[in-house]
């Protein structure tokens, strides 16, 4: 049913509909409203267990324990909260615990800012979590049941990321698929290995050099092989809800005949689409390749779409200090791996909530008219 809702509240509603068993969240702007609403639902008896914790390291640690017993778990955080979880995020992936977390993306200190960019998840890109970047609240709501399905079938944790404030605090019309709809799609979580007093095992084990690489190799392969399941899950759920967001890994917005392309993630893509529509009315052949699955990264799809393009601009909402920015690096790697040569420029912008508008997107497309490779802040 379509309702007028704040993005954060729609996400909380969806977590109830996904029948999460155990929650542990520590409030941090801009994710706070999600946690707040879930607390309310716990008080109302709609959520079986909500562990109040003193900080984010505890939140994710508590969920690691809960998930190890076979519970469906959820947490939400932002910025320094993600950074404080860092150590445990890697452990959770290595332990193959299917925790789902919503990150409301926000800049990292310093300077202290509370607004959106993607720097907070960049240190976690190598952690083994699947990272899905959503453009809209509707997409985030529709992605959460898929996140659980992927997490629990692949035994990989999943981050569903939304831009802080732009989405978390936006009040708009959102359709939250009902519990009945979600139940049809999302089976109960029945792990093969779990903490059980009748059949005790140790999880989070120590491993000698003889075995450790094998575990890492398995994990690496499983994250790599998650691309097909991500596509399949998106296809399956989109049939149920009659909405879709590209193939689950990427969204191709008018790229097929385009000469110049912007590659970007999350909410800025809405503005890029607007710019594309306006420029196309004037006869300019421009398109957007939106990366939805940041990890695993859709190298093949990027190669496919960038075939025979004239100039590509990668928009990063984060930096790699002393190196090329993160998304740009991945796109370069994708193209190096293929037989094509296309100029790829780098644009960094929107840091710490700096507005990136339709105009910003148009300026990038203007920059792409020249053949010269550019690397700049916008």
């Amino acid at each position, binding site marked *: 049913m379509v309702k007028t809702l704040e993005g954060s509240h729609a996400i909380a509603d969806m977590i109830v509909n996904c029948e999460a068993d155990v929650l542990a969240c520590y409030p941090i702007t801009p994710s706070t409203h999600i946690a707040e609403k879930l607390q309310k639902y716990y008080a109302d008896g709609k959520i079986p267990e909500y562990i109040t914790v003193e900080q984010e390291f505890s939140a994710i640690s508590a969920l690691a324990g809960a998930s190890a017993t076979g519970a469906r778990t959820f947490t939400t955080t932002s910025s320094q909260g993600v950074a404080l979880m860092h150590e445990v995020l890697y452990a959770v992936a290595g*332990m193959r615990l299917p925790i789902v977390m919503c990150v409301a993306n926000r800049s990292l200190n310093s300077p202290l800012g509370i607004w959106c960019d993607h720097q907070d998840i960049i240190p976690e890109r190598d952690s083994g979590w699947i990272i899905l970047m959503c453009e809209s609240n509707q997409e985030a709501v529709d992605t959460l049941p898929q996140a659980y399905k992927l997490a629990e079938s692949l035994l990989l944790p999943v981050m569903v990321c939304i831009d802080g404030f732009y989405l978390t605090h936006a009040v708009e019309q959102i359709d939250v698929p009902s519990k009945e709809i979600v139940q049809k799609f999302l089976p109960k979580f029945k792990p093969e290995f779990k903490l059980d007093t009748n059949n005790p095992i140790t999880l989070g*084990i120590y491993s000698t050099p003889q075995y450790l690489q094998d575990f890492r190799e398995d994990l690496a392969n499983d994250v790599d092989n998650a691309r097909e399941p991500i596509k399949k899950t998106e296809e399956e759920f989109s049939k149920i809800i009659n909405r879709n967001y590209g193939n689950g890994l990427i969204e191709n917005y008018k790229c097929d005949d385009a000469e110049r392309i912007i590659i970007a993630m999350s909410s800025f893509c809405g503005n890029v689409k607007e710019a594309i529509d306006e420029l196309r009315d004037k006869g300019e052949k421009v398109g957007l390749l939106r990366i939805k699955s940041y990890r695993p990264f859709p190298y093949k799809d990027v190669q496919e779409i960038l075939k025979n393009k004239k100039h590509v601009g990668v928009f990063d909402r984060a930096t790699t200090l002393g190196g090329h920015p993160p998304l740009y690096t991945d796109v370069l790697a994708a193209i190096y791996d293929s037989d094509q040569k296309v100029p790829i420029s780098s644009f960094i912008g929107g840091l710490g909530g700096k507005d990136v508008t339709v105009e910003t997107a148009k300026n990038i497309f203007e920059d792409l008219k020249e053949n010269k490779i550019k690397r700049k802040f916008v």
Partner: protein
Amino acid sequence: MAQKKDKTKEIKVPKVPHSKCDTAKENKTGSWRDQRPSIDLSKCIKCAQCALHCPDGAIEVDETGAHINYDYCKGCLICERICPVKCITHKKEEK
């Protein structure tokens, strides 16, 4: 101990690193020892202080006195320190 991956077999379910309980028994850590404690049972008063303090759980006390399991004793000599009647002594382990 986790099972070594068999690369010839396809793994259907993603593998969770885990170990069964009790597997620590398989690692005979006594081989690390370079000091060997021994108990003079004629003086032992069976107070079990040594067994309680042994970090490896390598001492059992029965009606005949305290007995060290050398498969696991690592030779830290805490038992020797703790024994109230000083009936535990040690010498260098000979391998």
